[in-house]
């Protein structure tokens, strides 16, 4: 008799068998089912309502933080202005949060670092949770009533959406796009799909979780070592095995493995967000490499070559055009002769990495006054970059005393890859808002 887990499923034949049987809950029809549809083929003694409840309980706060920091990232793009984000502004929820001007300039780096690093660290937990509920996928009959059918549909959709949500996030972080999929849109609205189904699932399963904790204790099963590990009694939900095998790992052993995987992911990833000496520890992070010790040796989101910006375009002929109530043209020398301000500001990419440098340049607020920006005007910084779409900055952002048109970094001219002759640098915005190779600053009435 084949009783091992995961023998190759043949989805069509067994379904027909169960549909034909007149009383699907009877023992006789169970015997006619084929693995993996037969409950006794799921033998791991670890599975059960407690384990699934505990993994779910760990997921709730983690998913909560990831969702919140994800929305903060979306709102940090000022999606109310068309073109600022790949998503919106139509059909979107209103912007509910902006970083206050009193918050340190690395606040966005922290929230986005959490979003990406925690998102990756949760992958082992998500996979363990899915493993713990695998018997449910093959449970027969498919549904006993309408409520059961709705449960089944929402669970299948939840599994598909969590996988797509994490996959799109990981692919975006690693700059890998496949096919014609707009990862930005699928990740953002996919979060609505996944988030809604996740909340629904947590609410529906709350009584099951409470019963599991009441029956077995919240943490008590973690005290069992391998010798004391026993299967949970078979439950209505079909999670606990009816025919448990001898355990080869304790529940706390399984959780330690999940936690160890999360910590390893943190170790090989987080350095690119924390920066400094930790960057060299981020052995697998997309921007983990050490770039050198020079003043311009910090990560580049996209190079001058990829933007098709050449040194000929940025030479002595380069002028900054400013358009407000007055239109004017300034050379780099004229900009350098204006009152300079030096600020320590963080570039934090949506991909999760960040870098903090000392920037010197002209405050954007001073340039706004010089050009005669109309009251409440939005600023569009136009770049020499080929095919770039401009982004809109609100007055509270460009009038922040920390916001600069930077000409120098760490005491030297910024390099071509970092945006020479001049780049915008702002506190608490996604990295790509710090427009490089600026050719024009336009103050447009909103």
């Amino acid at each position, binding site marked *: 008799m084949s009783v091992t*887990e*995961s023998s190759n*499923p043949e989805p069509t034949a067994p379904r027909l068998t169960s549909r034909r049987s007149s009383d699907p809950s009877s023992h006789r029809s169970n015997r006619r089912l084929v693995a993996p549809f037969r409950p006794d083929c799921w033998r791991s003694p670890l599975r059960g309502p407690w384990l699934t409840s505990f993994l779910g309980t760990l997921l709730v706060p983690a998913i909560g933080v990831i969702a919140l920091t994800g929305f903060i990232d979306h709102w940090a793009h000022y999606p109310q202005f068309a073109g600022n984000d790949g998503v919106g502004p139509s*059909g979107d929820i209103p912007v509910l949060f902006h970083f206050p001007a009193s918050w340190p300039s690395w606040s966005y780096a922290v929230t986005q670092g959490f979003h990406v690093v925690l998102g*990756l660290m949760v*992958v*082992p937990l998500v*996979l363990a949770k899915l*493993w713990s509920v*695998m018997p449910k*996928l093959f449970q027969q009959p498919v549904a006993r*009533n*309408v*409520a059961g059918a*709705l449960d089944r549909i*929402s669970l299948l959709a939840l*599994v*598909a959406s969590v*996988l*797509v949500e994490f*996959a799109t996030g*990981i692919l975006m972080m*690693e*700059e*890998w*796009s496949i*096919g*014609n*999929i*707009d990862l930005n*849109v*699928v990740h953002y*609205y*996919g979060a*609505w*799909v996944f988030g*809604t*189904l996740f*909340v*629904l699932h947590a609410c*529906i399963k709350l009584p099951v979780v409470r019963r599991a904790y009441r029956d077995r204790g919240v943490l008590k099963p973690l005290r069992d070592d391998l010798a004391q590990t026993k299967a949970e009694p078979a439950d209505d939900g079909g999670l606990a095995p009816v025919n448990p095998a001898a355990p*080869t*790992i304790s529940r706390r*052993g399984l959780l*330690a*493995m999940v936690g*160890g*995987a999360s910590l*390893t*992911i943190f170790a*090989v990833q987080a350095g690119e967000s924390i920066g400094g000496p930790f960057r060299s520890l981020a*052995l*697998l992070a*997309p*921007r983990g490499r050490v770039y050198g010790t020079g003043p311009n040796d910090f*990560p*580049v*989101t*996209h*190079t001058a070559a990829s933007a098709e910006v050449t040194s000929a375009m940025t030479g002595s002929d380069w002028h900054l055009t400013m358009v407000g109530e007055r239109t004017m043209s300034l050379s780099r020398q004229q900009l350098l002769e204006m009152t300079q301000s030096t600020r320590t500001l963080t570039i934090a990419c949506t991909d999760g990495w960040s870098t903090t440098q000392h920037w010197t340049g002209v405050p954007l607020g001073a340039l706004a006054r010089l050009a005669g920006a109309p009251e409440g005007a939005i600023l569009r910084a136009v770049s020499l970059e080929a095919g770039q779409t401009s982004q809109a900055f609100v007055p509270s952002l460009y009038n922040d005393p920390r916001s600069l048109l930077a000409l120098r970094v760490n005491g030297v001219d910024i390099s071509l890859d970092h945006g020479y002759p001049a780049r915008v640098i702002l506190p608490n915005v996604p990295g790509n808002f710090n427009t490089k190779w600026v050719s024009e600053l336009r103050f447009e009435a909103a």
Partner: protein
Amino acid sequence: MRRGLLLGFSRRYGASPLHLLAHLVGFAIVAFALDRIFSGGDVKELLIWYLGFAIAHDLVFVPAYSGLDRLLRATIARVPLRARTGVPVINHVRAPAVISALLLIIYFPLISRRNEGWYFSLSGHYLEHYARNWLLITAVLFLGSGLIYAARVVRTRARPVS
């Protein structure tokens, strides 16, 4: 009377009316968000993504790692290491293997250099170190797990058998 009506509904529907309400609200939000996703993209490709990931996970990935685990258990059963040392070895193989495999899955685009052209055009760097780093981390994980195993064996031997 009203209670009787509710009970009748619950019996036929299979859960409380709140269950139905929650699902209707939830499915409405999901339908709106899916419409946003599908209206902007290639419908066929998006369907392949959603269905493909679910099928790949449930019917390929899970059976594959369960099968590998079964193979591992069978192999270890043939090596009488536990009988000799008194400490089961299986999880000292499982843990580093699982962590290494997870790293490979998460960082596959970088390790496999599949996106190298695009990555280089953006960052000005190649991906030459990622496969090496992954192998290095894998080696360290197995070595660390082996050392912990050795320490456990020594501790078990030092402890008097009761």
